[in-house]
């Protein structure tokens, strides 16, 4: 019994951390630029394919990280310059444009890699005992890395000069520009950061899930709901949101099946729109 509780607890921690990490990129772009990037899931998908490619060529798993940053960073940059730049503050247009982008990336992946499911061999095989329960080592690594990434990002955003500049830009773009901040470069940097974060989380999950062109759809919805429930604009809100969505989903799915888990997540998100449209954690 105790083992079961311990196993379930670690599973829950794992699910929540993973969800929070997957949401980071979306939260950065939505929270700071006001753009709901519907192609977020596709950047995760591309990141996962980077891991697939690296493994197929027999390179070490970690080389997927620079590859993902290179690929998704440059795609993100090109998209920002060609499309997003002219659309900031036109929420609806950005929605449609990023939706089109998601389609483009998905169809491109389909054209290049085909529809088959790929899997990536885990870089850390074996298990480690946690509270007497053997747990897959790679999942533990995900928990550790994910928690660190969230923590570092929160500190950086609150304390760094760039964080301050970004906050100034989101607060009042015209004023920030008149103070000599290069709003264009900051916005591009933020967008690229968001796409790279998505890609890195994609690399991270590649050994855990089947990789296929349509995998991003599910992630963009889940991570969006995390942000709806958690509230925009703070890392702590993101963690709350991941706790609520990931926790509810795992709990309901454990007792019934995945469909009900998914249904409960949608109901929760609609309930939040009704009751707390700004989420659990609202920043000042």
């Amino acid at each position, binding site marked *: 019994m105790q083992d079961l509780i311990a196993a379930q607890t670690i599973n829950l921690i794992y699910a929540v951390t993973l969800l929070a990490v997957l949401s980071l990129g979306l939260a950065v772009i939505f929270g700071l630029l006001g753009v709901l990037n519907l192609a977020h899931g596709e950047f995760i998908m591309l990141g996962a394919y980077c891991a697939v490619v690296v493994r197929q060529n027999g390179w070490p798993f970690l080389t997927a990280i620079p590859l993902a940053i290179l690929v998704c960073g440059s795609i993100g940059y090109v998209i920002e310059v060609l499309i997003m730049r*002219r659309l900031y503050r036109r929420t609806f247009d950005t929605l449609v444009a990023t939706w089109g*982008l998601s389609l483009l990336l998905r169809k491109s992946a389909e054209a290049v890699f085909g529809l088959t499911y790929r899997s990536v061999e885990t870089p850390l095989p074996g298990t480690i005992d946690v509270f007497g329960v053997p747990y897959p080592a790679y999942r533990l690594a995900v928990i550790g890395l994910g928690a660190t990434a969230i923590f570092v990002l929160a500190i950086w955003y609150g304390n760094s000069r760039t964080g301050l500049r970004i906050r100034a830009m989101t607060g009042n773009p015209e004023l920030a520009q008149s103070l000599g901040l290069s709003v264009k470069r900051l916005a591009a940097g933020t967008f690229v950061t968001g796409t790279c974060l998505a890609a890195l989380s994609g690399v991270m999950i590649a050994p855990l899930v089947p990789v296929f062109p349509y995998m991003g759809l599910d992630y963009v919805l889940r991570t969006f709901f995390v942000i709806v429930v958690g509230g925009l604009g703070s890392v702590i809100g993101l963690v709350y949101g991941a706790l609520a969505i990931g926790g509810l989903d795992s709990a309901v799915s454990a007792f019934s099946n995945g469909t009900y888990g998914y249904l409960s997540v949608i109901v929760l998100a609609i309930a939040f729109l009704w009751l707390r449209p700004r989420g659990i954690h609202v920043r000042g």
Partner: protein
Amino acid sequence: MSAAKAGIMVVLAVPFAFGEYALYQMSLYFLYAVAAVGVGLCWGQVGVLPLGHALFFGIAAYLAGFVLIAGDNAPWLLLLLPLAALVAGIIAFAIGILVFRRVGESGPYFSMITLALSLLAFQVTTNWASLTGGFDGLKDIPSLPGLDSTMANYAASAAALVAVLAGGHWLMASPLGVLWRAIAQNERRVALFGFNTNLLKAVAFGISGLFAGIGGTIYASQQGFVTPQVVGFGLSAELVIWAAVGGRGSLVGPVIGTLLIGTLTSELRDTFRFWEVLTAVSFIVVVLFFPSGLVGLMDPVVRWLDGKPKVRDDIEAPVSVRNGAPPRRLKIDQVTVRAGEVLILDRLNLDLGSKGISCIIGPNGAGKTSTFNVVSGEMRASQGVVTYGDLVLTRMAAHRIAATAGIGRKLQFPSVFPDLSIAENLAIALWSGRASASDLLRPWVRRWTSPLLRQLRLRYAFLSSGARKASELSHGERQILELSMAILTEPRILLLDEPCAGLSPDETSTVIDVIRWASEATGCAVVIIEHDMSLVLKLADAVYVLHNGTLLARGSVKEIQANEDVRSIYAGNRK
């Protein structure tokens, strides 16, 4: 010959021009087009993007499948078939009410929820095998009696498409369509005219769901099978692409998009690997650079086919429900409004009498516009009540305050509907308090006029050039258009927020005349926020001075000018 007739002739010619297989293909794509028209209606008219619209197509297809299978043994059950489409429409309407009502949210949140529901439906239909047949779907669905040949199916699909187009055309030509387009441009302004915008949006979504449902119902009979694909993401996405590329702003746009992209895709998908990448690129390009889509390119042809629009005579509008009712007292009692730590209104008491013209003055940040926002229900008071006669306004929605209390408003920045014509702008104001729910479905109601409108047109000639778009007007003309619209609703209390801002001296003096005339002609009480003291001198029967969210002084213009407190807050300004 009109464009509509040309279209119908093309539809009739297809069976003779192409072979059996093309006919079969067309029958299927006509049904998809029916659903795409629904997406176009929602997105192009109301500005709400449904990302999971296959949901309604699929719900109706499954329901129709059940009915058709059951109807094999009990033919009378086939009479229930129309319910399949209707249920899809009702579900869409319910979702619309549920999501729009609370926060009026119709941007990303709404789109994402429709997307999520469509994915959920895919999971349910895949997993609930005992009912839906699981991943393989419902099979061996008998076709409707009489619809067993390719030709008959083609005729049924074509008839459904023509019917939906005719219905859609009628909606777009009716006042409801005008209100939808107005909502897409400035939802707040529509609500301030007393229309329940969330309900209107839900109606639009419900109708677009119904359209998709009609397509789905016939689909089940025509194809003979229904799989989870019809509720899922793939079809949802394609409906959006077809509507966008064809042109979401018009009714035929989505049809052309569906027929062109749809058939090309089924031709090229297998031979040309990057075809779908290409459609994605064309989607992005169209959405960003050619919002009117392919059909926009054909505009000149359509206009040539349709010829000049006929000008018809105006119709006298019914008398406003508010006509002649004496204004009652508008009382703001101990109202406090906070934004975070900042006190915007601090236990404000304001008794705005019930006749004549009052002016509210005060330095920037005194809480003048916020007072209006509280009265018209756009800003919530954390304490205190606002009453109009014995009506408590504080907890009422903005549109109900405008409609039931008859509180009209002109906003600080001229806010008209830029992409609507002058006539349409004025008509929206006329419908407020006059049009019943069924009037909103009667196209000729767009030709309403009223004595006030005739007099306004005599004063301002530009109001008569009805076909011009409001966006073509100058700043001053837009101020006057919005003022005219506010007057046309025959409000009992008219709140004007800096009606003369940015006007030339000449324009200012005509506006002063109009305000005076309107208050006498309609018997309404007028409350004006104004900075310009010369204007206050000319207009005000009573003056209220706000400072830091409270009432500093009230009285006649003379009394206020003599008031020491007022002088001290305006010190250095000497006005």
